[in-house]
């Protein structure tokens, strides 16, 4: 009590010195902010503006770009591959995102309490996070081979009829690509949820137990509401990661066969650097940006609120 009372009385004179100092913009501090800002402007903001501009042009990268207005966007509307990539991206978001959130939360709940062996279990789930998605993809490519682990196990179980060329079949390729992506993402989401769960005040559970709440009630009435801020982080991470997902698909199928595992990101890359339709690819990139925009904005608003908290 005395501390809170005396603090304001002492603070003003002490703060006056540094505050006056702070008002004068020292060139060093200005440089501290401006140099990084310029670096980011050069490599990120300026290219981003150019990217939007290029989306209104037709350009092969060699001859000068010609402005075609919204032509690229009109073409997108009638492009079946774009439709497929958009649909797959939504599917990816729901399946990859949904399952990694559920799996991550489930694993975090399972591995929350400190008990013997839990460190090992957490590390096991977390290990794939440090692998590159390309190495991950190659591991799974071997697993999906006709003579790979999946078919070997199916054969051993007597399910020979289920054996399959998983990545080469247009019906299964997308799902076959999601599995390795999940294998890696679940460990990451688990870490986020573990951090969130550890931050919940244990007395809440004690009080609930005294009131006779069962485990399920405790989960829905305490755990989930308390996790709301982590949930929103996880949601942002999932949406942004889904729209960015590229490596694992590119390494496994390059979007094929017949665009069956095509995401917006892989379609954008191949349109730009293989078909060399740089204007059209930029329009695809703008679509990805527009889809991400809502999330980016929500994330920033939250960050803005937290920045001084």
């Amino acid at each position, binding site marked *: 009590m005395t501390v809170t009372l005396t603090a304001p009385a002492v603070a003003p004179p002490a*703060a006056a*010195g540094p505050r006056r100092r702070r008002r004068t913009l020292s060139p060093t*501090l*200005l440089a501290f*902010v401006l*140099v990084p*800002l310029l*670096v*980011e402007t*050069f*490599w990120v*903001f300026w*290219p*981003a503006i150019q*990217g939007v501009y290029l989306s209104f042009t037709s350009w092969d*990268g060699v001859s000068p770009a010609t402005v075609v207005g919204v032509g690229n966007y009109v073409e997108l509307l009638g492009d079946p591959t774009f439709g497929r990539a958009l649909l797959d991206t939504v599917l990816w978001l729901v399946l990859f995102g949904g399952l990694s959130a559920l799996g991550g939360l489930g694993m975090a709940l*399972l591995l929350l309490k400190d*008990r013997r*062996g839990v460190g090992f279990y957490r590390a096991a789930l977390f*290990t*794939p*996070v*440090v*692998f*590159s998605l*390309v190495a991950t993809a*190659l*591991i799974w*490519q*071997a*697993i999906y*081979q006709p*003579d*790979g*682990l999946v078919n070997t*196990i199916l054969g051993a179980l007597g399910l020979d009829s289920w054996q399959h060329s998983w990545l080469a079949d247009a019906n299964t390729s997308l799902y076959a690509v999601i599995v390795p992506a999940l294998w890696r993402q679940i460990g990451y989401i688990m*870490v*986020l*949820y573990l*951090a969130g769960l550890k931050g919940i005040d244990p007395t809440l559970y004690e009080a609930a137990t005294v009131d006779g709440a069962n485990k399920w009630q405790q989960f829905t009435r305490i755990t989930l509401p308390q996790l709301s801020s*982590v949930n929103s982080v*996880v949601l942002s991470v999932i949406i942004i990661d889904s*729209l*960015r997902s590229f490596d694992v698909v590119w*390494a496994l199928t390059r979007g094929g066969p017949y665009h069956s595992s095509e995401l917006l*990101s892989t379609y*954008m*890359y191949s349109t*730009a*650097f293989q078909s060399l339709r*740089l204007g059209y*690819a930029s329009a695809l990139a703008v679509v*990805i940006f527009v889809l*991400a925009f809502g*999330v980016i904005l929500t*994330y*920033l608003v939250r*960050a*803005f609120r937290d*920045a001084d908290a």
Partner: protein
Amino acid sequence: MSRRPLRTGGYHLVAGGISILWLLPILLVIVTSLRSFDDVAANGVGGLPHSFTLGNFAQAWVDGGEFQAMVNSLIVTIPAVIITLALGAISAFALSRYDLPLRRTVLLVMLAGNLLPPQILLVPVSKMAEMLGIYDTLAALIGVQIGFGLGFYTFVLYGFMRAIPNEIQQAAVIDGASPTQIFWRIILPLTRPALASLAALAFTWVFNDLLWSITVIRTDSKMPITSALLGLQGQYVSQWNVIAAGSVIAAIPTVAVFLRFQRHFVAGLALGAVK
């Protein structure tokens, strides 16, 4: 009383089972990397091993060009991580410890840059690199990795530096310390745990990147390890023993960083979650 050991046993069965399932692909790639081609061809990638050889590693390392790729990756990753963290630290310092005009706006604009989907930058960045004459060089890759990562590191370090009590700084101000001295002698040492976490994370991110490297690098001998690994996949089609050895080699540096800085690493990932 009698149900406790049963429940504990059940827990370890479930958690242990999942862990083994999770580690199985890693085990498989290690085993495959140690098998001979004839063995894999005869018994399948999913079959039980009948041979043991270390030759696949030599093949991936020398013939597959992974040695050069590893050197390239380190040439990109180490400077990129150091420079990004240095730039992130100075901007976070100025923004968090001083009442600069528009400081929150600047911070959020920088964070926004990191949240942008990289796809919108790919074409312009590759063309910019061409104009600057650094297309197909590691310098272009270092540059874009710094620019793209900067916002996130600034944001995380800002949060961390903001939490340092003001009294510590005021004492130094009264003693006449300049901002540079305060940064170097007081704030930076106190920020070390966050810097360690971010360095471990940044290392794996930059090292594992594929998209930027296949966008700005064309020549095989300049490829970093992830894109070289894709090359290996094309060069050694269905020679799973060599591809597996290549994947193991590519994973060693990040796994080493993870094992060495495990706690920092996990803490780094969780940094954004709890706020």
